[in-house]
Structure formats: structure tokens, C-alpha cells
């Protein structure tokens, strides 16, 4: 299954890194959308279906935690797979996210780390012919 993905980070450079890493990971991708904060992301999610959201925590306007809480309140999106890609290092916060069914990838990350997290959360399989396995 080709994934439609929304990447949410206030850093355009980090969004580019996440998207490039996703493409290198061997995962089959459909549409890849971008947003600079949680509010922009919610606007996109109101108009477009995506299979997976990759989001940062520390963002202006609406941060990642507020965004997750907002998404979970929307019945059609309450099961949407989400992976936090962040510099967050507190095991207390990371465990809280994982208990809520949110994936977590720590910055800096490798293609393998990102791919494993996506596979674990969505159950998709990797197109081995395009996977280089490393970053």
C-alpha cells in the first residue's frame, strides 16, 4: 500500500530531511504533504485524507501535543497513525506518547529508524527493490 503522508515541522529544512529519508527508506509513498505547525496541519487534514502523520512537538501557533489532542477528538481521524519526530529525550514524555499509541523517532534519525517506526505503526511492507537500508 502506498502511503499518503503529512509531515509537520516548523523547520522547512527538517521537513525536507524527513521527506528525503522517507523516500530513501524503501516505503512506497503516494502524496507527501507539508505543514509548518499544528493549525496548518489540521486545516490540511480537514480537506485531504492521509494515512500517516509525522510531526514535531515544539512548534509555534499549535504544538505537536495540542495537535495530537485535537486530532484524537475528531471521530474520522481518531485512529490516524501518528509518529512524533522530535529532539524530545525525556523517557517520561516519550512513554506517555507511546501509551497513547503514538510512535516516536528521536532526532537525528536514520532511514532505518524511520522505516521501522512506520512499519510498526501502520503495518505496511517495504518495497525491497527501492530500499537501500541505510542513510
Amino acid at each position, binding site marked *: 500500500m502506498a502511503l499518503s503522508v503529512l509531515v509537520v515541522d516548523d*523547520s*522547512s*529544512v*527538517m521537513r*525536507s*530531511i524527513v521527506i*528525503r529519508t522517507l523516500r530513501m527508506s524503501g516505503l512506497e509513498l503516494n502524496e507527501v504533504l507539508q505543514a509548518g505547525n499544528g493549525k496548518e496541519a489540521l486545516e490540511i487534514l480537514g480537506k485531504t485524507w492521509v494515512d500517516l502523520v509525522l510531526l514535531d512537538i*515544539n512548534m*509555534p501557533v499549535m504544538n505537536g501535543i495540542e495537535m495530537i489532542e485535537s486530532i484524537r477528538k475528531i471521530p474520522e481521524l481518531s485512529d490516524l497513525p501518528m509518529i512524533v519526530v*522530535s*529532539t*524530545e*529525550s*525525556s*523517557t*517520561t*514524555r516519550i512513554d506517555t506518547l507511546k501509551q497513547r499509541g503514538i510512535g516516536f523517532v*528521536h*532526532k*537525528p*534519525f*536514520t532511514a532505518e529508524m524511520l522505516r521501522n517506526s512506520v512499519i510498526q505503526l501502520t503495518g505496511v511492507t517495504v518495497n525491497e527493490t527501492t530500499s537501500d537500508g541505510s542513510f
Partner: protein
Amino acid sequence: MKRLQTDLFKAGLRVFEDLGFLLPSAEINEEQAQAQTQVAVTVEFSGPVGGMILLTLGGPILPVLTANMLGDELPTTEAQEIDALKEVCNVICGNLLPNLINEDAVFDIHPPQVRSVKNLESFLQMPSIHQAIGLEEGRADIRLFLPEEFLKREA
């Protein structure tokens, strides 16, 4: 002080290697030592202990770092370079914080702020833990500012 300096070096090393695809080194050669500071950024954090990280880059390293992060060819735009600089400092901070107290400690990392290179003197006079990292034809200087009593306890 030695322990946190080592942690600072490891955090910087990891970020410049894994995010910037550079070959950082603890040893600074003559060219790197003489590289003039070009850009500066700070990231403040709060939690069980508050503090700040100041990252400065000397020499022509920021465009290379930015292009590497983007997976693009040079030239890069100034906006991309500032964004890359902020992100690098942010990730260094996030990788360092678990070493300050323990891995359970909850910190808030505040948005990075670009600083004028001309106005760094006040920061440089404050007590800090400093680690220089050699980066190709340039140098990164990472300074960790913590409350004085915390620095004394770590010394």
C-alpha cells in the same frame, strides 16, 4: 565539568555527523582555529535546571552544512541556512539534556534565536562549559550555560 564537556562533545559529534554529514573532530587544526565566527544561535531550556546552549560556527561551513542537510547542491539560500543552524542547535540541545539530570527529567526546549556575532561578548564572559569541534575548513563552538551552583557541583 569534564563529564558534561564530554557529553557536549558527543551530542555535537552525533548531530554534525548524522544530520550534517560532516566529519567532526575534537582536534582543531590551524585553519579551523583561525576561522572567524560567522553565525551564532542560542537555545534556552527550562525544567529541573534551566540554561542555554550557544552554538557559533566559524569559517565557510554553514552553506555546506545546509546543503548536506537538504541533500542539495550549493548554493543554499540565507533562509535555509538560518533554518538549518537553528535546527542543529535545537537537536544538540535535545541530545544533551538527558545527561544533565537523568533520562526521566522533563525539559522544555524553547525556540532557537539567531544572535548577532557582534554582540556575543556578554555571553562569552559568562561561565560555561565549552567544546570546540573541527568541521572541515571551519569550527563549531558549543557553550553550555547553567546556573553557577550547578556548574560548581559538576566541577
